[in-house]
């Protein structure tokens, strides 16, 4: 991000004015927030401020996820503003969500005046204590002289290295106190040194392994998307020049185009047969910006047993955390990929990959995402397929909630560009999708932004449709409504003897009427024959839409690596599920 020194360097401002000036100097155009007693001075400074658009949310959790969605779609830092006490505690979930998924957000929270801290004052909470393990870093600013510096440092920490959430807690008296403002130039924490360029020796080692590989695979993650569009271009060049197959994590979708023949689809628990088998059988694995999460690896002692592993990550603590690797490269993904591309071009190897691709084609022939079609009920997979087919030429931004619909979206929606896919991967936060979509739409008012949702998840942050209506942000909420918490139901079927304990919603709102009550548009489809027209209508409407797509009620999400199993033990469908998960697997999540 470009940051420039402020022209009013030497003048004295109130703490609240310092906050607003610092935000402007950081290039902030949108903030998502909710006022309250302890942030009133900052809201006063924002009053009629033309440079910053404030989006008034309905719940602070919504503000946090909006900032996340905004950040993921734009590559900029998302900003949320909340009051003390409940305002701050309500945003803890988005902070952890952003920490798990490495999303750069800055949360500014109000705090009770310094002389009341520790007295159990009204709306007091130990915000820096509560959010210490929920942030990359946080600050309580007790002296107005420190305020401008801390805010600029906060932006630097949030966006650099492995991005993440930060929080700045500002007591109310500090917002009133006056100090000289300092601009952002050169301000960064002295003790924070994120990794940059890769060690050339490690790159040489990696390139040598790659040049000799017979069964290589790229395994890329959200780190490539975070490294920026250029890094994604470099990845594309490297993958094409090497001719290697590529798979990616849920978070990394879009860094490499899904329409490319070298793309194997997503890997992991609900990833494709070919991606997971390629991971298991490969001889060289090149992991870029991913973290060997348990949803990706399956059983660790059965994880890709025969491969040499190269791991590129900007965070040194990611190396050897879950899986021991042979070559660890600590660097920005874009710089490392560029170095790797140059090293590859210098070596000019001609790997003989035909037998490997033949094997991959045999795995592909399994068509592991296939499902039984129906003329009478809408299959959820079919709904996502149709949504993709009818929107793909409109360069849509897709967010999701968490559960089966999220996995079907990842399986059936093809992403050809980065920053088009916003989902809660690490934390798995139901309620993420709608506010994230609002955040994306705030950044790109003319884009088509769709939240692929479930009827259970959507109700966790339903109220944010009111925010969308207020700001005329025409987000589309596409609910795959099966009346069940689908993923919970699926696990109860597979692991708990079909005892469906509290996973069915006996009462659900009429989503069409609910949309209308909020001032949005409600649409419904329950027959496959009506689906296309209804989706087209949804796209055509220039207002927020809630689409109640009634789908088959007990469809399971396959393929699946059962918990506690390895990549090559994945199952394709219902008939294989009996006894697929043993007692040990049951213990896992």
């Amino acid at each position: 991000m470009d940051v420039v020194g402020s022209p009013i360097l030497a003048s004295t401002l109130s703490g609240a004015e310092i906050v607003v000036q610092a935000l402007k100097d950081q290039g902030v155009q949108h903030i998502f927030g909710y006022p309250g007693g302890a942030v009133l001075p900052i809201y006063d400074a924002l009053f009629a401020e033309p440079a910053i658009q404030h989006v008034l949310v309905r719940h602070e959790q919504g503000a946090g996820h909006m900032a996340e969605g905004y950040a993921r779609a734009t590559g900029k830092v998302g900003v949320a503003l909340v009051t003390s006490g409940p305002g701050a505690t309500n945003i803890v979930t988005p902070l952890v969500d952003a920490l798990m998924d490495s999303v750069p957000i800055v949360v500014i929270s109000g705090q009770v005046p310094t002389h009341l801290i520790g007295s159990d004052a009204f709306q007091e909470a130990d915000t820096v204590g509560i959010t210490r393990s929920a942030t990359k870093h946080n600050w309580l600013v007790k002296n107005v002289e420190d305020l401008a510096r801390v805010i600029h440092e906060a932006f630097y920490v949030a966006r650099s290295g492995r991005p993440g959430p930060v929080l700045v807690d500002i007591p109310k008296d500090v917002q009133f106190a006056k100090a000289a403002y300092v601009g952002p130039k050169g301000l960064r924490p002295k003790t924070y040194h994120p990794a940059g360029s890769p060690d050339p020796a490690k790159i040489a080692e990696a390139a040598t392994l790659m040049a000799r590989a017979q069964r290589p695979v790229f395994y890329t993650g959200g780190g490539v998307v975070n490294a920026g569009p250029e890094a994604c271009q470099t990845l594309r060049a490297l993958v094409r020049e090497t001719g290697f197959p590529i798979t990616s994590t849920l978070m990394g979708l879009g860094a490499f185009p899904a329409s490319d023949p070298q793309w194997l689809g997503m890997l992991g628990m609900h990833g494709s047969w070919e991606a997971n088998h390629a991971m298991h059988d490969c001889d060289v694995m090149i992991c870029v910006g991913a973290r060997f999460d348990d949803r990706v690896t399956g059983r660790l002692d059965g994880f890709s047993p025969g491969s040499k592993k190269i791991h590129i990550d900007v965070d040194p603590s990611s190396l050897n955390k879950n899986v021991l690797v042979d070559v660890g490269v600590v660097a920005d993904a874009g710089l490392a990929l560029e170095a790797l591309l140059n090293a590859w071009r210098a070596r000019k190897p001609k790997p003989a990959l035909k037998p490997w691709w033949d094997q991959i084609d045999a795995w592909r022939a399994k068509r592991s995402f296939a499902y039984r079609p129906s003329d009478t009920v809408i299959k959820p997979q079919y709904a996502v397929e149709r949504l993709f087919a009818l929107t793909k030429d409109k360069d849509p931004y897709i967010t999701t909630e968490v559960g089966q619909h999220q996995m079907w979206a990842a399986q059936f929606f093809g992403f050809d560009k980065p920053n088009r896919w916003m989902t809660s991967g690490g934390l798995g936060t139901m309620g993420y999708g709608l506010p994230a979509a609002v955040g994306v739409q705030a950044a790109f008012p003319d884009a088509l932004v769709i939240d692929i949702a479930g009827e259970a998840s959507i109700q966790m942050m339903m109220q944010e449709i009111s925010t969308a209506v207020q700001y005329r942000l025409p987000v589309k909420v596409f609910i795959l409504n099966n009346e069940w918490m689908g993923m919970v139901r699926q696990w109860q079927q597979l692991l708990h003897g079909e005892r469906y304990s509290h996973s069915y919603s006996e009462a659900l709102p009429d989503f069409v009427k609910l949309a209308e009550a909020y001032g949005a548009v409600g649409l419904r489809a329950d027959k496959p024959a009506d689906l296309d027209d209804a989706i087209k209508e949804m796209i055509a409407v220039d207002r927020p839409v809630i689409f109640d797509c009634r789908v088959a009620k007990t469809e399971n999400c396959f393929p699946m690596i059962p918990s506690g199993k390895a990549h090559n033990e994945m199952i394709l469908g219902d008939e294989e599920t009996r006894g697929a998960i043993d007692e040990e697997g049951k213990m896992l999540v």
Partner: protein
Amino acid sequence: MPQRTHDPVETRTLAVLVNNEPGVLARVVGLFSARGYNIESLTVAETDKAVGASRITIVTTGQPVILDQIKAQLDRIVSVRRVIDVTLDPAGVQRELALIKVRSTGQDRIEALRVSEIFRAKVIDTTLQSFIFELTGASEKIDAFCELMRPLGLVEVSRTGVLSIHRGPESS
């Protein structure tokens, strides 16, 4: 955790140089509790007021891969300046200080005083029934002293935990 369960558990002393700012100890200790790492001993104090630096010395245990993980995790805390593995430093010096109260009379009292001389412990308080010894040295030496004092009337032990520094003229 990486699958290398046959590696032996090792004990390491880590010197963590941090900014002396509010909450920094909570960040370090919180990391250990959140990720399930062990703390055998912990000391912390400001070491340079002028630059606002504190030194946290932590004795921890784990397999080598876990110990590397601990160091990497500590290093990415924004307030941490440096992490030094004192155990791996051949020029590293480690010391601990202990105050040890022993209550005894007669032959046991004489024996306690004799043992304390062997260990070069200082008597810093005495009554007719008790001594308080001050002892500095490696943790193992303090352990050994306490074991010897146990049958001689050991009543209470207070220890600082391990402190460490690098030999030679350079700063760490």
